[in-house]
Structure formats: structure tokens, C-alpha cells
């Protein structure tokens, strides 16, 4: 009886509720759950721009480029000195979920038959966004560049199973030994993927195609493809050379890959450089060094590099530092703050201000890297050619890049390919801080001269500067005496972030176990053995 009554009450209230909702079904809410202020579909050209911008951000990032500049003693810290005292660099990778996943999405959308010819991916005949092949190629080249900067900082990292989204939540950490060949293969694949019969790729801020006419001319399509092909081949050489410690011999993997790439078009003049050009204006369009350094006093031009350049009368010192006194490297906070005050605030900040205005460019891969790499490859017997010619054009090209005119006198003097003595010994020593041990930048072989020039040319590109130093040991940098790590040596890698330990614990533990001494900053990664 009661149950029946309750049931009828319930039925009555359903009836009233139905009337109240305008007799719609109770569960029918129409399009209430569709947002009006956002899109359900990504547009590949917009994703590409979004992925390209943060590449240059890496250069001025505290945990990427700047950290490298500090470890390489290009820069010094002036007030908060934990990085240059080798505080534990337990840091998260970063780029995977920002730039890299946007690039992977471009590749996926251009590959999937369901999406590859849709408006959001291909555009229309009137306003095409780019051929599938070329979009995949550019995205792949950028992807390799990102991953290269990651593996060179941490060592073994996810590559083969990375970027699979929710499909694979626990990507395996690939061995760096396997990542290197894979990067080279991916770059070759990218070059092969370019489609010169299709449309030019839009949203490319590095090698942009003119916006008018809407359909790019064949010449513009070809120019974009050639520019990126040169980037890809240059990267192949630089990546192959990074393996010089593990594959030193002329017939080895590094040599073969280098030689193959060296025969292809690459960046060999500054006009071909891969450059980030900032229009200025909004934060996104502003030079990232300007954004990070302007108004702050955190960093200075390091006395270590200052001494090397002064000893060699290298005019690039005027480009690399603002006027003032170079700052001793690796001081603890109280001494750094005291130095800062006692030199009347006239210590030299990194970069001549003319190189870090809001609209200054950042060169991602300059010709000098490629030319000096070729010089080293010839010297190692990996390729044929005249090493000295590559060396001299490399140095000249670096001078030109930094606005320093001719390098003829320099190349005849301290930087002479055959007789140059390098930057001297006991560099970076300052009598006010006798505990600081001076480093040695003397050179006795052409190979060391090439490597010292590379060390100098990488100023502003901390990841490359630190990586090249770890590969070559040139110059012979000394760690700060105030290091807080144990042993008090210059870090050889970053340690895996707490995030990895939380989200991919098994894999990160395996990767850590593969390192001698575990997940520590002084363990050596594969190519650094």
C-alpha cells in the first residue's frame, strides 16, 4: 500500500519535472555542454608556430641554456649562486608536453587518413596550410632538435615510446646509445618526406613563406624546403660529431653518418643560419634574453671566458659582454654580493646590449658550428677536405655573426690553426678569491684549437656550450672551490625530476640504475664516457 503510494508520488513528480523542462526528455540538454569560446579542432599551422617559439626560449631558460652557460663558465651568477655552486639539478624535462607534443600532433594529423586532407590540416586550394609531406618533415626536424637538447642534458630519456598521449602512459626510457642513431634516421626520413610538388608550409616563423600570394610560388616552396634541408643536414653533422668519444674511428657510425650529411647542402654561411627573428612588441615576440635579463642583476659575463678572450685579443668579448669587469666564477652568495657592490655595479653583464634588445635575433644553428664541425671531422679523418680552411671560415663566420669584422689578424695570432697558443693558463683566477683555481685554455693541437673555437662560438647557446665542453674537455675548466655537490666536480648531466619519479617510477629507476653511481649529476652519460 505504502509502496504504491510512494510510487505514484514519484511518478507525479517525474510528470511535473517533465512539464517543467518543456516536455523534453529528462536527460536531453541539447548543446549546453559545448563551449562557445574554444574550438574542438586544432589547426596545424597554428600548432607549428606554437612549437617553434619555445625552441629559442630554451636559450634563455634558467634550467636549459642559462644553466649550460653557467656550467660552461661563460656566465657567472651574481647574487643567488646555487647553480654555479652545483646545487642538485633535479629538474623536469619540460619540452615534451609543450613544443614536442604540438609537433607530434602535426605529424599525426598529417598521417591519419581521416584528418590529413581536412581544412584544419591541409587548408583549402585557395589558402593551403602546407603539403602533408613537408609539414611532417619540418615537424620531425624540430622534434629531433628538441629531443637532442633533452638527451644531452639528462642522458637516457623516452624517445621511441614518448609522445603517444594517453595510449602509452609509461614510456620506456631509451638508451642514449639508441637515441642517437634514431635521431639521425629521423632526420634523413624528414628530408625524404619534403614534397616540392605540394603547398608551402604556413605558420613557419623560421623560414617563412610570403603571405602574398596566398598560394606560394614554386620558388618559395623550393626555398623553404632547401632551408630546412640545410638545417636537417647540419643537425646530422652536429649530432654525429657528439658521438666522437664513443665512435672515434674513421669507419665508425659517427664518421659514416657525418660524411653522408657533409655531402649534402648545409648551413655554411650566416645567410643560411637557422635564426629566431623577434619582431618585438608582445612578450611572445620579444627576445627571450631581453625578457629574462633586463632589469635583473642575476648574471654576469664570466671571468673565465673573459680571460680566454682577452688573452687571445678576441674582439668577440665586446659582443659577449657589456662594458665592465668580468665576474669571478663560482662565488658563494656573500662573496658574490660583496663583489657586485665593490666593483661599483660595473661588473659586466652577459651580451653587449645591442645583441639583446627586444628585437635582437637568436641564432639557433649558425654556420660557424657546421664549419668548425667539418674542420674537426677532417682532422679526425672522417671526411676529406682542408681542415684549416673550414676552421678559418668557421672563425670568420662567428666574427661576422657577432659583428666583429675580419678575423684575419686573430687567425694569424693566438688562434692560428697551426701555432695558436689558445687562451692561456690559470684563467678565471682572481687574487681576491685565492680559492678559485684557474682553468687552462692553452691549445697544443689543431683539434684543440678547433674545439676551443667551438667553445667560444657557442656563447649564448648554453646547452651546446656545456655539451661541447663535456665532449672535448676544452678548455680545461676547473670546478668552483665552493661546490655544494660531492665530488665537487662540474656536473656532467642533470638529474631526473621529481615528476618522473612520481609518474614513471619503474622506467626512471631503470635509467638511474644504468648510470654509474646512480641518478647523480656527476654520473657520465653514454657519449660522455
Amino acid at each position, binding site marked *: 500500500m505504502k509502496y504504491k503510494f510512494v510510487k505514484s508520488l514519484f511518478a507525479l513528480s517525474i510528470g511535473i519535472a517533465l512539464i517543467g523542462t518543456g516536455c523534453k526528455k529528462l536527460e536531453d540538454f541539447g548543446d549546453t555542454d559545448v563551449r562557445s569560446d574554444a574550438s574542438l579542432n586544432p589547426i596545424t599551422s597554428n600548432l607549428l608556430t606554437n612549437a617553434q617559439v619555445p625552441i629559442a626560449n630554451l636559450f634563455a631558460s634558467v634550467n636549459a641554456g642559462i644553466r649550460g652557460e653557467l656550467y660552461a663558465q661563460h656566465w657567472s651568477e651574481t647574487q643567488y649562486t646555487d647553480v654555479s655552486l652545483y646545487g642538485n639539478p633535479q629538474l623536469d624535462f619540460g619540452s615534451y*608536453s609543450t613544443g614536442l607534443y604540438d609537433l607530434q600532433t602535426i605529424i599525426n594529423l598529417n598521417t591519419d587518413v581521416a584528418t590529413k586532407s581536412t581544412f584544419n590540416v591541409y587548408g583549402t586550394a585557395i589558402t593551403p596550410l602546407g603539403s602533408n609531406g613537408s609539414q611532417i618533415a619540418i615537424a620531425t626536424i624540430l622534434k629531433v632538435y628538441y629531443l637532442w637538447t633533452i638527451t644531452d642534458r639528462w642522458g637516457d630519456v623516452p624517445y621511441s615510446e614518448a609522445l603517444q598521449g594517453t595510449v602509452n602512459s*609509461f614510456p620506456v626510457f631509451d638508451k642514449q646509445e639508441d637515441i642517437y642513431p634514431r635521431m639521425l634516421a629521423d632526420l634523413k626520413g624528414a628530408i625524404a618526406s619534403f614534397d616540392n610538388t605540394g603547398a608551402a608550409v604556413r605558420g613557419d616563423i623560421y623560414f617563412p613563406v610570403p603571405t602574398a600570394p596566398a598560394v606560394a610560388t614554386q620558388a618559395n616552396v623550393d626555398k623553404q624546403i632547401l632551408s630546412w634541408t640545410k638545417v636537417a643536414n647540419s643537425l646530422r653533422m652536429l649530432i654525429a660529431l657528439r658521438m666522437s668519444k664513443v665512435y672515434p674511428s674513421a669507419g665508425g657510425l659517427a664518421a659514416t653518418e657525418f660524411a653522408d650529411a657533409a655531402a649534402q647542402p648545409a648551413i655554411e654561411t650566416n645567410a643560411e643560419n637557422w635564426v629566431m627573428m623577434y619582431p618585438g612588441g608582445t612578450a611572445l615576440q620579444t627576445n627571450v634574453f631581453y625578457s629574462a635579463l633586463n632589469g635583473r642583476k642575476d648574471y654576469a659575463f664570466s671571468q673565465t671566458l673573459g680571460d680566454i678572450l682577452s688573452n687571445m685579443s678576441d674582439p668577440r668579448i665586446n659582443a659577449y659582454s657589456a662594458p665592465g669587469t668580468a665576474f669571478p666564477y663560482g662565488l658563494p652568495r656573500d662573496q658574490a654580493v660583496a663583489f657586485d657592490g665593490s666593483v661599483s655595479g660595473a661588473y659586466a653583464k652577459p651580451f653587449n646590449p645591442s645583441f639583446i634588445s627586444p628585437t635582437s635575433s637568436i641564432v639557433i644553428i649558425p654556420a660557424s658550428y657546421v664549419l668548425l664541425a667539418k674542420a674537426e671531422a677532417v682532422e679526425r679523418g672522417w671526411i676529406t677536405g682542408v681542415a684549416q680552411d673550414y676552421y678559418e671560415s668557421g672563425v670568420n663566420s662567428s666574427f661576422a655573426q657577432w659583428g666583429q669584422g675580419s678575423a684575419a689578424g686573430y687567425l694569424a695570432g693566438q688562434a692560428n690553426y697551426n701555432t695558436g697558443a689558445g687562451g692561456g693558463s690559470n684563467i678565471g683566477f682572481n687574487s681576491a678569491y685565492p680559492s678559485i683555481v684557474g682553468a687552462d685554455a692553452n691549445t697544443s693541437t689543431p683539434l684543440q684549437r678547433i674545439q676551443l673555437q667551438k667553445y667560444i662560438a657557442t656563447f649564448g647557446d648554453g646547452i651546446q656550450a656545456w655539451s661541447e665542453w663535456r665532449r672535448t674537455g676544452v678548455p680545461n675548466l676547473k670546478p668552483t672551490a665552493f661546490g655544494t655537490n660531492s665530488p665537487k666536480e662540474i656536473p656532467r648531466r642533470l638529474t631526473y625530476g621529481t615528476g618522473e619519479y612520481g609518474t614513471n617510477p619503474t622506467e626512471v629507476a631503470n635509467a638511474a640504475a644504468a648510470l654509474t653511481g646512480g641518478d647523480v649529476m656527476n654520473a657520465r652519460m653514454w657519449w660522455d664516457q
Partner: protein
Amino acid sequence: MRRFLSLFTVLMLCGALAFAQSRVVTGKVIDNTGKPVPFASVTVKGGKSGVQTDVNGEYSIRVNTGDVLQISQANFDVTDATVGATSNLTTELTLKTNTIKEVIVTSAFQTRRTLRSQSSNVQNVSSEQLNTVRASNVNNALAGKVAGAQVRSQSAVALGRETVIRLRGENGLGVGGGPIYVVDGTIIPSANDINTDDVDNITILQGPASAALFGPDGSNGAIVITTKRARKNSPGMGIEINSGVTFDKVYVTPNYQNSYAGGTSSDLIQYTWQPGQPDTWKALDGKYYHNYDDDASWGPRMNGQEYIPWYAWYGGHEKSFQTAKLTPQANNAKDFYNTGVTLSNNVSFSKATDNTNFRIAYTNLDVKGLIPNSYLKRHTLNTNLSVDLSSRITASASINYVNQRRNADGDDGYANQSSGSFNQWFHRDLDINILKDLRGLKTPEGIYASWNISNPDTYDAQNKVGFYGGNYWFNPYTWFDLVKSFNERNRLFGDVSLTYKVNNDLKIKGTYRRQQLTTNGYNIYPTELQVSGNQTGLNPYGETTAETQLAAYQTGESFSQRQYYEGLLSYTKKVKDFQINSNAGFVIYKATQRAFNANTSGGLIIPGVYSLANSVNKIRNNGTNNFEGIINYKSRGLFIRADVGYKNWAFLEGTFRRDYASAEPQGFHVDTKSLGASIVFSDLIKDKSILSYGKIRASYGQVLNLLDAYDRNVYYTVGDVFNGNPTMTVPNLAPTPTLHGSTNDEKEAGIELRFLKNRIGASVTYWSRTNKDFPVNISFDPTTGIPTSRGNAGEVKKNGVDVQFNLQPVNMKNLTWDISATWAYLIKNEVVSIAPGLTRLVSANGTYGPGTTNPLSAWTVSEVGKPWGQLHGTGIKRNASGVAILDANGLYTPEADVNYGSVLPSYTGGFQNTISLFKNFVANVNIDYAYGGKFFSLSNYWGDFSGLTARTAALNDKGNSVRDAVEDGGGVHVTGVDDADKAIDMYVDAKTYFDQFYSSKISEKHVYDLTYMKMRELSLGYKLPVERMGVSKYINAATVSVIGRNLWLIYSKTKDFDPSEISGVQGEDGQFPGTRSIGVNLKLNF
């Protein structure tokens, strides 16, 4: 809606036609305080028919004029009432001595029931208990008074900040949602908009077992508030005035050192005048200064020696170019804060007649904050009106309006401008009164003077700001004078309803509710500061370091609205010994939100003009709110509930509710259900001289939650443009396709006993809860490309015991003492699982937590197999016997990822004492406490690094300052072992010792216990003898009280913070100091 109303009209007409021939009288039975008396029996004397009052004390009965109604209820004296000409009748009953009247509790849709019939531990807090000390915040006023509720209060310096209440532990994998606040049936999203002066009583429903009727909204419990109504037969005109003033002073601050001055150099530096420097500085030539540019206090020892203070370098004031004595300023941080003044005035007018009930109240809260120039002004209007249009139809309306204006930046995170400076980066020699006097001091160029200037040898006539400008900090007074942070909110809520009594058993009620909030506000970070600073960040909106140093203007508005259409059928029937109460109904819900929030970027085109149009770059939003936000959400629910009582001592109850929502796939619904039983076994015992009351109860509830709007899709939003190229990013959050709401199950059982005529009693409840499948953002490895997936994950199992206790130790004619106490023991709050392959999820993080550029603090994680909220951080490596491992220099070896324990206290509770003397004096002392739980202090972390804390200048065991050189007997004494387990016992230079926590990122030394006991409320009240004073003609009652809040932190392990007011879940990031308030209050009834 229109159709719905017309149907309602038809229903009402049908009812009216069916019963129109009879003479029906509607009555209400109340007690001497005007509260309804439920389940009283009403019979016509000499007649056979009788009815029973419902839970609202209402009844209707068919009678003839002149009939006498006899009204009886167990706890009251039998009373007669004669039926006159009116159709409405109100009868007041007198409570028998030594009995306790029924407590009425309120649930969803304003359904009311007796506490006696509840099968779960529902707690009720009366207005008097809540407002022993008038509070402007309902959560703070509940602290210690509700078993199972942990109130996480906040410093009074943080004007208008929301406090958090946890019912029965934390509800979620991350930081879970709290209970809902319901005012007269309407859900109010902010506890701050509840005016405690208007609260009549609060019912606390802990979770699924008791709050099932709320459906998914009640998953984490509900705090159900009933506002005051007019009371019939109340003496006087019905005007009440309640006026109070309280004064807040800073009470708890970290323990600072008072021996060493600012800077890093332990010696004073001699100044030598140089050509090119201002001629006026010649007066200072040869004198000494400490380095001003470092904002730490590792400077010279303060002996009253002559030195050049920061202000001496600036011209234009009386102390220009003069030296001073270097002396400690022990109270500089404390004295910075104003005495806060809170004025609270409430006036209410109420009147109840046989067929109308009307109350209107206005409250004005005016707070002058402790931070200079901060204020909060709130106006609250509360109206309740109900009219019996006929014996069958009642119309009622409730309208509430809250207007609040506030100027206060409220930032108490890392390096904020007050506590963030004083506790983290400051000079212990700064005379706060001079900073105050010189707050407007500026150079002819317009650079505002700062204590944190550069050293004089950096002076450059071409770049004066380089010297005169603030290096990292401005004068804090200047900052709070110039920075504006204004916010205004207008909240309107209430309902209109129509109730139709079909007969004495069946009622139909239709209600329309609405709750809406509009906010607007702006922030100004002025040009004057932009031109006065060096490295210091100025505005929080900058995307880059350079941008944060520019002036900025931000403004925003928001509008949100929630509407409810409710239909409720109520059926009560007494069949022989069975009393049936049931409800069925529906609720149709619509929510809309629109918000706009933007700030200038890249600085201002015209200095000093604060307008979005004056932005150098495109306006944008970096805040936590969306630039533009539009949310639309709808849901529909159907429900039915019933309880059956047998002879008013055995009860069975059940609830079922089904909800549909727009955020769910079409056709999907969630069900909520609860079932419970209770037996008042003391009714079976005749002799009540020992056991006055005894009850056992058990209940079960399950709530399934609903998703939020737009949870199920991935959306791409418009990014910035780079050189003509728009940007768009793949969101870092992807929902899983099977995403659905969580399940929350709760079981509880309890016993209530009262003895010796209710003079002593206790209620003990054991509860157990399982929350699972939370729709949470789960962090996956960012290398997957999607670092966060929104999916269902996890299971948290909790159980605990809630105990309420009451005692009347003294009950004499002129002296009574009542104690009520609560104690809650959270036995377990364990994370059982997270997601396949995942054993850990970061749940709360401070400024320096993992994922930030410099992770050095402690953070909390949910970890499988451990209690919720495990505090982790880099700790000190120890050997097997727990001895710290030191390196050769005596410094700790860091050990990554050390577990410091849970942030949840295991016991919480409080006790309230009420002592009345001669009926005129009433004293209340309320104490609350928590035991267990940890928190991390970022203030002390940096305070040690900066040499501000007393530890950094303490005496070592040789009796020398730790700052003295080790060779002179100074240094910090450290003991431990080396990595070969050989004992180390040595002294370490103080600066090296205190620096290591930063360089090694060790957070262990700055983790403290949350355990505390505090006297939160004290009130001494005196009821003025209005009759003896001869003013009773005008004034019915007058009470004056002296009140105090947070008077005494009786116990806490750390004396640096009030553990009951920790700002974040993992700890504090630079939070405001604890305060103590004292005031007086006057209450007058006319």
C-alpha cells in the same frame, strides 16, 4: 516554466474545490522561544478526532467555532486553546522541568525532522553556541564545536579570505572539495557571504549517509543554515540591535634575532666621498654603513655604534645626511601592522502574527585591516516573509543581499610585501617608525626611497634609480599606499515559494530559487613604483621577468547565476502507532557564468593612466581566472525520501535520488541513496532517574558525483600571435573517454546516552567511508605529451570516531556551568589506489614545490598504502640508527624524497564552557585543539637563510654566538657520523650552516607539527537589569559583553606560527601573522 505554473494552479484549485465545504483551522504550536513543537497531538476536547503537528509544528484540523483544542507533547505541559473567529491559531507550550526539547534539524529542500529520528550523527549548532563571540566568518565560529570538523582558519590580516572546513578528513585524491553551504535551502558557494548574525541554527550533515537528499552536491557533506524568523508572542516591538567593536593586534610572529644588522658583510663598510657623488654626501665622508643592497640580515653586530642609515642618503627630510646609532628593532615587523578595527552593527525588525511572519535585518561590517590602507566593508540585508493567504495556502519569500567592497591585495605567499619581507628578506635594524614617517619620501626625479638601496659606490648620476631605487624591495608603506587592489561583490539570493495544503497529510510546495553573484574589481601597480625599482618585480601579470617590472592595470567582472525550480510533495500520516513522513519531488537546475578579466601588458603607454586602452601590448590575462569565461550547465534531479517512526522510539528512513546533467553523456544518470534505522531504547525503560536518554542508530549512504561542465572534451583556445601567425596549443589535459563522477560510500553507527536528568551525556559515532573513482587530473609522465589526464582514479578509505560530550558539573540556583565537548579521531584516511602503474600523485605544492624552477620546499602527495597528504621533501640522510650523516665540513648529506608524515591531524576537537552566575553574568570559554599532522614553513626556511630568525644568532653550548668565528668559540655545534659511521662532533660557521639548506634543498629542518591547543573564544556577558534600572518600558533586554578571539595559543610546538591558521595544505609560503582580538559588544532588544 509557464506550463509548470499553470499545472500548479490547477492542482491547487482541485484541492480547494474538494475541501471547500469544511471549516478548517490551521495552527502552529511553538515553545516559549518561538520554536515549533513537532509531533504534538491536537485533539478537540470531547471529540474523537485528533491530528498531530508536523515537524514545523503545524497542523490543520476541522472544527467549529468555540471548540477547545487540547495540545499535548511529552516534554511540555498540556495546554488548551479555544477556536475563535480566525482560521489561524498559534499556541505556546511550556517546557516541563528537567526535560530537553526536541532539536529540529534541516536537510535539503528545507525539509525538517527531529534529531531524535535521525539515523546518522547529525549535529546542530544553535545561534547562541555559534555566536558566543560574534564572528564574521561562519567556519571560524564552528571551530571545536562540531565533532569531525577540522576548521583551517586563516589569519585575520587576510581580509575576506575563505577558510576551509574539512568534514571527516580530506575528500579526494588531491585537495578535495569541501561541504556545501546551504542557507534556507539555497546553496551559497562562499561561506563568507553567510552573515552569522542572521543564523538561527546550523545543521551539519557529514556526508552521504545524512546528506543524500542533496544528491551529488551533498557528497562531501552539507552545512545547512536556517536564518532567523520572527517569534510570535515575543515581548516588545521586535527590534533588536547588536553592536560590537573588536580590535586586532598581531600576536604570533616568527622569533627574530635582534643582534645583527642587515646586509651580508659582517663588518661595517667605510664610505669615502668620490667626485661625481652629490656634494651633500660629503657630510657622510668617512662614516660607516652596512651593505643595503642585500636584503638579508647577516650584517654587523648591533652595538649602538654610529652608522649611516638608508635614509641618510636621501635629501629633503630632517634626518638627511646624518648618521644614527645601529640598534636592534625587535618589534619592527609587529609594529608595521595597524591595530585592526572591526565594527559590526546589526539591526533587525521582526513581527509574527497568526498568519504572517516577517523579519528584516541589516548588518554592517566595517573592517579596517591590519595592513595599511586595507579595508573591508560589507552590507548584508536578510529578509524573510511568509503569509498564510488562507488556511491552505502559504506564500513566502526570502531575499538576501550582500554587498562587499574590499581593498586589500591579500597576497601572503612567498616574498609578499609584508610578512613575506619581514620573515624572509629584511633587515633587523630597520626602524619601522622611520619607514612609516618617510613613506612618501622621493628624490627630485620621483624615485621613492627604499631601505633596500644599492651601496653608495654604485652611485651614477646618469642612472640615479640604480642607487636610490629599491633593489628588491620598496618601503612597505609606500607599496601599500600606492598599490591598489579593489574588489566588489554583490550577491543576491533567496527564494519565493507557494505551499498548498491539500489536507492535513499532504502538502505541495513549489519553489523558485536564485543565487547570483556579480563581482568587479581592479588592481593598479603604479608607474611611480615602476620608476622606483631595480630588480624588484612589481606586477604579478608579467609573462617575463622584464614585464613584471612594469606598471600594470588589471580589471575584471564576473557574473554567475544559479537557478532552481523545485517541486516538493510532503506527506505525513499517523497510522495507529506508526508515524510516516515522506517527501517526493524534483529539482531543475540551471547555472550560467560569464567572466571577463584582463590586464595591460608590456607597461603603460601614458604613465599613470590606468585603463586597458593604455596597454603597450595587446591586453591579456595571466591570472587564475579566464580571460573570458562562459560556462553553461544544467541538471535535473528527482527524489523521494521517507521515514517511518514507531511510537516515536523506533525509526526507519530511506532516500533515493536520481540526477541527470548536461556534462554527462545523454541518457546517463547518477543515483544517490541512503538507508538508516534508529531506536531510542530509553523510551522502553520506565525509570528515567539514571538513564535519561539512550539511542542507537546505524545508517548507510552512497553518492555518485556528476562531472563539471566541459569536462569531457578537449578544447583548443586562441593563443598569442607571433609575427602574424596565430598560435594554438594541444591542451596538456585530456579526458579519458569513460570519464564519470566519483562514488562516495559511507556507513556509520552510533550510540547516544544521557544520564542523571540529562546532566551528563555522550554521543559516539563510528563511521567509515570509501571514496573512489575520483574524476581527477592525474599527472602522467609529461614525456607522453599529455602530462595530465582527466580520468577516474583512486580509492580513499577513511574511518573514524566522532564523539560529542556534555556535562553540567554545577547546577545551582545562581550558578550553572555547562561543558560541551567534541573529539574526533581520524583512524584512517588511506589512499588505497591511484591508477594502474601509479603509486603517487602530488596533491599540494607551495611556491617552491616540484615542477617549479627551484624545487626546494616540501610538498604533499597521495601515495598508495599511506594516509592522504604525505608531506615529502629532501631530508637529511641518516644512518640505520637515525643519526645524521655529515660531510667533512660538518654539513648534512641530503637525502631525496624523505617522508615527513601526513598533514592531517589525527585528533581534532574542542570544549565549550558556559558559566552563568545570578542569571545575569554569563561567561563562555571555548577551546579547540588538533593533534598530529605536519606543515612546512617557507618563511622559516628563508628566514634562516637570510639570518632573520633567532636561531641564526643563538648562543651555542659554549655560550658564544653561533655567528662568532669557529676559532673564537662560535659556530653551530653539529654532531653526527660520517659515511663510514665514524662520529663527527664539530662547530660549523653559522652562515655556512644555515646556507646549506638552500644549496642542498633540505626542507626537513623546517617541517613542524600542526598540534595545537588554543583558547579561541572568550566572552564575558552581563545582562543589564533593565527593570531595576527603570528602562524596561523602552528596553526589553540589554546585554553587554567583553569578547576575545584567539586570546591564547595555549600549546603549539612551534611558537612561530599559529598551527590552526596555516595558509596552505602543505604548509605556509610566507603567511600573515596570527592575531589576537579583543572587543565589546552590546545587544539591545526593544
